[in-house]
């Protein structure tokens, strides 16, 4: 896999260089937009990963993000009336993470205590989020703008500067979180137990791992990540809009699958989805190819299905995902 990863990285660099030679302005725009679009997908994909690695399917990410964006917006919007914009934004972040974590705990609870089907429970979260955020939404509020943290000096570099060093805090945070989740998943006791519980809960149970507690913890952590994903949406939009997730929570599932339930894979897949989105958006303005932009929009989803369908591409989900655990 390392060689494939390296190969892809190399290919990307070469393609970017050539493309930059041909049309520097468009290439820079697409590259920067790719990274920007990837950020919420990374965070949401990691939410799915942390849930599914512990054995719970989360198709409620869409709703979690929407609730998070809503509460983050309201939190920051009200807080700024009594404090500075940076602390107000922090209040927003906390509100976003909290509400999405509560939604995650709800999903865990319905699965563990009520033995509800996890897909239906996720759907409940999605429907609820669409309704509740619109119901309580009041037009005309504003929130402090999420600042842009461009790295002085580096952001002047051609292509790379705009692409990597000229973003809002949640974009940098997304990449940092990938590293954190990677280390946590593969190098801590929590990670070992998470992987064990998602693959073979009874093996973990018979050696004394408290699998239900672990699932609650993971769904809360995943929810917090979905909360950050919601804030990443606000970072670009600066205002809450009805249904502003626009399917990104479901795309996050695809990101997780193509990323093979690994943090690094989620990063790569999110960038891939971000790239096709950016390309599609850019092509709407300027018709560069004969290929309609919508076809670029389809590629990642067709790819997701193909990856799942092709056996041997190691797109293997955690074995116990979706199943209720029976204690004898």
């Amino acid at each position, binding site marked *: 896999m390392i060689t494939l990863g390296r190969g892809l990285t190399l290919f990307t660099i070469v393609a970017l260089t050539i493309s930059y030679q041909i049309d520097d302005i468009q290439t820079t725009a697409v590259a920067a937009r790719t990274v920007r679009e990837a950020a919420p997908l990374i965070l949401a994909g990691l939410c799915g990963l942390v849930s599914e690695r512990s054995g719970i399917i989360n198709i409620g990410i869409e709703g979690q993000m929407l609730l998070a964006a809503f509460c983050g917006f309201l939190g920051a919007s009200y807080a700024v009336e009594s404090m500075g914009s940076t602390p107000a934004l922090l209040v927003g972040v906390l509100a976003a993470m909290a509400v999405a974590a509560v939604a995650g705990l709800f999903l865990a609870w319905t699965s563990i205590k009520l033995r509800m089907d996890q897909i239906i429970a996720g759907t409940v979260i999605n429907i609820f989020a669409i309704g509740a955020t619109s119901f309580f939404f009041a037009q005309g509020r504003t929130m402090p703008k999420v600042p842009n943290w461009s790295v002085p000096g580096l952001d002047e570099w051609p292509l790379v500067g705009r692409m990597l060093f000229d973003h809002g805090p949640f974009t940098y945070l997304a990449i940092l979180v990938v590293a954190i989740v990677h280390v946590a998943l593969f190098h801590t*006791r929590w990670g070992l137990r998470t992987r*064990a519980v998602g693959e073979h809960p009874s*093996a*973990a149970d*018979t*050696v004394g791992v408290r699998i239900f507690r672990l699932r609650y913890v993971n769904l809360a952590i995943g929810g917090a990540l979905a909360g950050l994903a919601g804030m990443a949406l606000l970072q670009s939009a600066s205002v809450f809009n009805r249904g502003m997730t626009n399917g990104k929570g479901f795309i996050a599932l695809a990101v997780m699958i193509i990323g093979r339930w690994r943090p690094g894979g989620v990063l790569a897949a999110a960038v891939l989805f971000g790239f096709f989105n950016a390309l599609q958006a850019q092509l709407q303005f300027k018709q560069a190819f004969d290929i309609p932009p919508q076809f670029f929009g389809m590629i990642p989803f067709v790819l997701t299905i193909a990856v799942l369908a092709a056996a041997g591409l190691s797109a293997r989900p955690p074995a116990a995902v979706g199943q209720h655990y029976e204690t004898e």
Partner: protein
Amino acid sequence: MTNDTPLLEARGLTKRFPGVIANDQVDLVLHRGEILGLLGENGAGKSTLVKMLFGIHQPDEGEILLRGERITNDGPGESIARGISMVHQHFQLVPPLTVAENIVLGAEPVRGLRFDKGAANDRVREISERYGLTVEPTDVVEQLPVGLQQRVEILKALYRGAELLILDEPTAVLTPQETDELLAILRDLAATGVGIIFITHKLREVLDVTDRVTVLRRGKSVGTVATAEATSASLAELMVGRSVVLRVDKTAAEPSEPVLTTSELRVRDDRKRELVSGVDLEVRSGEILGIAGVEGNGQRELVEAVTGVRPIHAGHATIVGQRVAHDPRSVRELGVAYIPEDRERDGLVGVYSIADNLVLTSYHTAPFARTGVRQFPAIRQLATKLVERFDVRTPSIETPVSSLSGGNKQKVIVARELSVENQLVVASQPTRGVDVGSIEFIHQQLIDARDKGAAVLLVSAELDEIFALADRIAVIYEGRIVAELDPNTTSREEVGLYMAGGG
């Protein structure tokens, strides 16, 4: 505590499940450094017994003493803490994790926040050297052969300081070579003072490795013997017993032309292991061929292959001259009735009514359907007739099958399969878990099918059943037919020996 206090003692353990007594006043004693064999057919209650010892099930009656002290049953976690470990039939290993990760899971060495992989690997290496169980700690479990995976399970127990090790049918999944290795490992472990309970239904292994044997039969302990004083024959007799005298009136067979023939038949299980290794069989019209054998020797795969449920890997099977394809419906259409071994899972749809289950294989044919439309009057008529004729005890033909007793469920299948004229009847464990009255009834139905000219292939782990019904006996062992015997001239001891791989 004195030296001769047993490591573990169970007194009068009883466990009831709805409708069955799984264990009935079972006693058991295990000493330090001893290997105790727990022998019995499937369904004899071995698993239930050890699950009580390990704390998974709560006994309804009786007591368990560990090192002379009475223990209460507090779940597997508590048992492990007390030094009791169990190697389950289905491994409790996480396939994508490494050997060391699996072994230390739940009791991981940590350094700060990090899981200390180095320390885990070192600990595993140390234990594996101490007990002579070679494994590579960094190997990924799912890439290991089954025998090594089992070794990881045993190491998992030793890492947790097990003094008492329970192994539930550990050889069921092993090759003969792996089995020999395991038996050697168990001997070495016992020599270090670990007490071992070894569950199996294979006589050879019991004779090979155990010090004493406790035999279970239909939930009861029917005897404990010192292995040195036992023989295959004596154990086989204890195990299969002869308490239920099965009387079936049956005339001599009048076999005519062959209906089912297999030639060099090879069949693989889902994990691509070859479980049927070149079987040549012939079943003639008007005779019952009984396949005797200890379960897991390829019977299930053989039956599934000739009924079209499982693909044939090599060789072939023909029924009335037609090649058997991997298509159950086309096989049925040749005039084949099939009573599968696992009736709940394979033979019935629990939520369906008796009537729907009775037409489960004929729902699409006249008179039960016309041009794709089901004809309920015809279905009801058939169901009413069959429920009466096959004596299915039920309030109504609309009753869901899941609410019937085991015997009545089986009668529904027998009624469905044997109420029509058949060329071939394949019956796999047709009376397992069925009450005595129903057993006699089902046996009579099989004889009647034979007398009407069907060829009957009967697979049974119950020697009584084989002797009661079969006109010829073929013994299957490790996927091969090792003997063909005439029930009138052979003894059950002889059959038992072949079943155990001797003879």
